[in-house]
């Protein structure tokens, strides 16, 4: 039951998470997954199975763009960055999210930070 809820929740918010993480700098897939894990204090996990379908979908929509980067002494990795379209989508999604959380908070009586 818990995993079904998490699945639904993830689906609606994960795009926002990924776009947010790519806002300042480009990152590779594993880094994105790990950052989500760390910053959520272990509450959210993204594995290969869930992360890459999402990345590829966002890339296909033109919101993010990946390219291979080789750094000295490291393996070749695919880094993703936000496109201008993605930038605009992120702004919009943030607003939506704020409205949503605010609304839920007001109804559920949870103090909004």
């Amino acid at each position, binding site marked *: 039951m818990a995993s079904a809820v998490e699945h639904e929740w993830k689906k609606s918010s994960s795009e926002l998470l990924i776009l947010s993480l790519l806002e300042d700098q480009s990152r590779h897939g594993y880094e994105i997954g790990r950052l989500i894990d760390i910053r959520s204090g272990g509450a959210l996990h993204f594995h*290969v*199975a869930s*992360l890459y379908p999402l990345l590829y979908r966002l890339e296909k929509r033109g919101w993010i763009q990946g390219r291979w980067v080789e750094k000295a002494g490291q*393996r*070749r990795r695919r880094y993703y960055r936000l496109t201008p*379209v993605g930038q605009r*989508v992120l702004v919009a999604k943030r607003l939506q999210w704020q409205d949503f959380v605010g609304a839920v908070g007001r109804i559920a009586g949870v103090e909004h930070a």
Partner: protein
Amino acid sequence: MLDWKLEIRKRLVGSNLKPEREAEILDELSNHMQDRYDDLRVQETTHEEAFRDVIRELDLTDLVSELQPSEDIAPQDLVPEGVPAKGQLLSDFLMDLRYAIRTMWKSPGFTAVAALALALGIGANTAVFTVVNTLLLNPLPVEKISTLAALNTTQKKKTAQLGDLQALSFLNLKDLRGRTRAFRSLAGHSSPMAVTMTYKAEPHRIFMELVTSNYFQALGLHPYLGRFFLPDEDIKPGAAAVAVLGYSAWQNRFGGVSDIVGRTIKLNDTAFTVVGIGPKDFKGLYAVFGPDLWVPSMMAEQVLPSSLQKALTDRTIPLFTGIGRLDTSFALPQAQAEMKIAAATLEDEHPDANQGQDIVVRPLIEAAYGPERQALMFGGAFLMAIVGLVLLIACSNVANLLLARATVRRQEIAVRIALGAGRRRLMRQLLTESILLGLLGGVFGFLFGYGGCQLLSSLRPAEYAQNLADLRIDPAVFGFTFAIALVTGLVFGIVPALRSSRTSVSEVLKEETRTAGRTRGRINMANALLAGQVSISLVLLVVAAMFLRSIQHEYTIDPGYQTKHLALFMLYPGQAGYDQTRTEQFYKQARDRVSSIRGIASFSWASNLPLWGRKETGVVIEGQEQRKKSEAISTVVKTIDLDYFATMGVPFVKGRDFTQDDRDRSAPVAIINDTMAAEYWPNQDPLGKRVQLPHGQNFLQIVGIVKTSNYQTLGEPPQACIFIPLRQNFSDGMILYVRTEQNPSTILASVQDEIHNIDPGLAVEDIRTGTKVIDQALWWSKMAVDLLAVFGLLALALASVGLYGIMAYSVNQRRREIGVRMALGAGQGNVWLLVLRQGMTLVLIGLAVGIALALLVGHALSRFLYGVSGNDLLSLGGASLVLLAVAFVACYLPARSASRVDPLVALRSA
């Protein structure tokens, strides 16, 4: 690094990725797994545990399905989901625009064909609108035209008929100016009149208008150069010989020299100083024909022909149309009432001149067209309707192309809907594409329209091209073209866009591109559009054919005289300063010299060109009771010399021609036509009876009766006419009529030389052959018919290209079906027939509808046709045949290609 790739590859089985893409994914995922493994190992797990955990996390079902469906869609082409409309309209629009440009760029063939079809339609509309705008909507570039009115005289009983409007006499105008309160200023202008202008010793015939000094100021105009007339230049007759030159006369006759102001030109025999140049677009107050220059009214005696020289002092000579600027506190009806009273006062004060006369006040814009107003209005509306239909065909053509393309793009659109693009959003995107296409067509259409206007301008008769209105491309034309381009984009885009956005995602995604069965609905829509195009083009063709036949008939009208061996030379010795004795001497000299030229059968002098007859009202018949002024006899009056009827080939019914003995000392005589004889002397012999002309002192004895011919327009109803001999009725400007044995153009130069030998200072500019007179009389109708023919053919071309396109497309869609049929034994002939039947059925349906419509339209137009009925079989049949032939070719080509389908290739490729 461990080898993760084997595990990943196992899980990617069935994803049908391209090898390069698969390699990339393998690289990326194995990197990820290695990182994960390394992290787990750092947390002190064993190799086995870490390896197992990593592999357990590797569930690629989601990834495989994510990679599946829309493999071949370029990612950047997708409309992003979730971008809200609020506050994002502009960025959405820009995105749509970019996308539309890319789509158009990707299919240049489609874009070119569609834009060309639209450009032709829009171009035709732009050209016709420019004409309508110049002549009808916005004819006079004067200030606040709505507060300007034109004043004319009319007989009280006939006020309803505008054709009977006459000018005001100078003295009446002067009295009105002193009495009006409704008009802040009241000016007057004559109609354009021919004068001889001599500049650098070369005589030219040009058109001049006499105006009161406040004319330009009343119209709110400003000179392009120099100044207009001053009030004190219009007080003393003959005192101020100054002239304002029209802009185009300055450009065309003086090469636009900058120091024109202050130069001297000679008008007739008087030197005038040019004081200014009129505004650029201003060519007088008649929308169609304007003067080359303006002269103050006080110079009337110096520039007018002898018959009008007393215009400033004689209250019976109508010369000026009044132009009034309404005072702000008055409206037109009040001005009309005021003028009615003023007319009554004038009638009381000067009953001889003004009996039974009223003053008509009309808005200037109405007066601007003269008596041709109705014909022009109708012609304008009619041509707009015609080009509107041409544009409609172009639109339905492009709509068809879009519908056909929509089938190809269904998959793309379905994917976009699946990815969350809203229907409304999608429609907006598709409409952006079609409007962009419309605007592209608009740009080229504007260029076509501009070219069309240039072409139309170049078709104006060269003799007075500069006096005719210039077609103006002004902001209104820009606005019009832009608006129709926009509307066009919407019209042809909306149906395909609606249909496309209604695409059912699941069906389309499952469906493969080759199945054409589901596109029936589209084909039906396309068929309806096609049949519609066929019927509209038929209507246009039939209309063009009917008018073509009508003008052919007009050319066969017998004007009542010969035109094939006729040459005409206009000569105004009076304008060169000749007095009566010298003029008479000149007429005699010219006769002597011309008679020595070989190839001339006979010649004569007459006061008017053929079809330029002048009517006079108030003819008195001796012995009949005095008629009221409103019932006065009105006839054409022509002054002619000996041998006129022989030269023109007009036969005598009775009596004799004028002879050498009919001279100023002998009894005054006249010849009448048989229409006049029948009308005023029914069952009597008019020979020997006497008539008096309106301004004549003597009664003239009728000595001959000739056959009636056309005096004012071709094919006119018979009019009464009185001919009087030149030798008893002096005129200082006459036209030399020459009948030649051969083609008249061969003797034109020799006659001109002989006249030049008599006096190089005489202008012999306006030389015409008889056939040219007829051409000019029919010029307007000919031009209109040419335009109709062009538009009819344009419609036919567009419709047949559309037919060809849709047939070729449908054959392509049915390739597989045709392949199957052929594989099952259908012969080439059967396939050929199948396709041909499909196309020609449509054509025949369109034809049937078209014939019905053409009959209706023909009926409505029948009163504008000459000698052709509104259901003219030849026009209907001819147009139908042409259309059938062209449509057959348009269907034949795709049918032939269908019959050449190789079943093996078709089935394999499908």
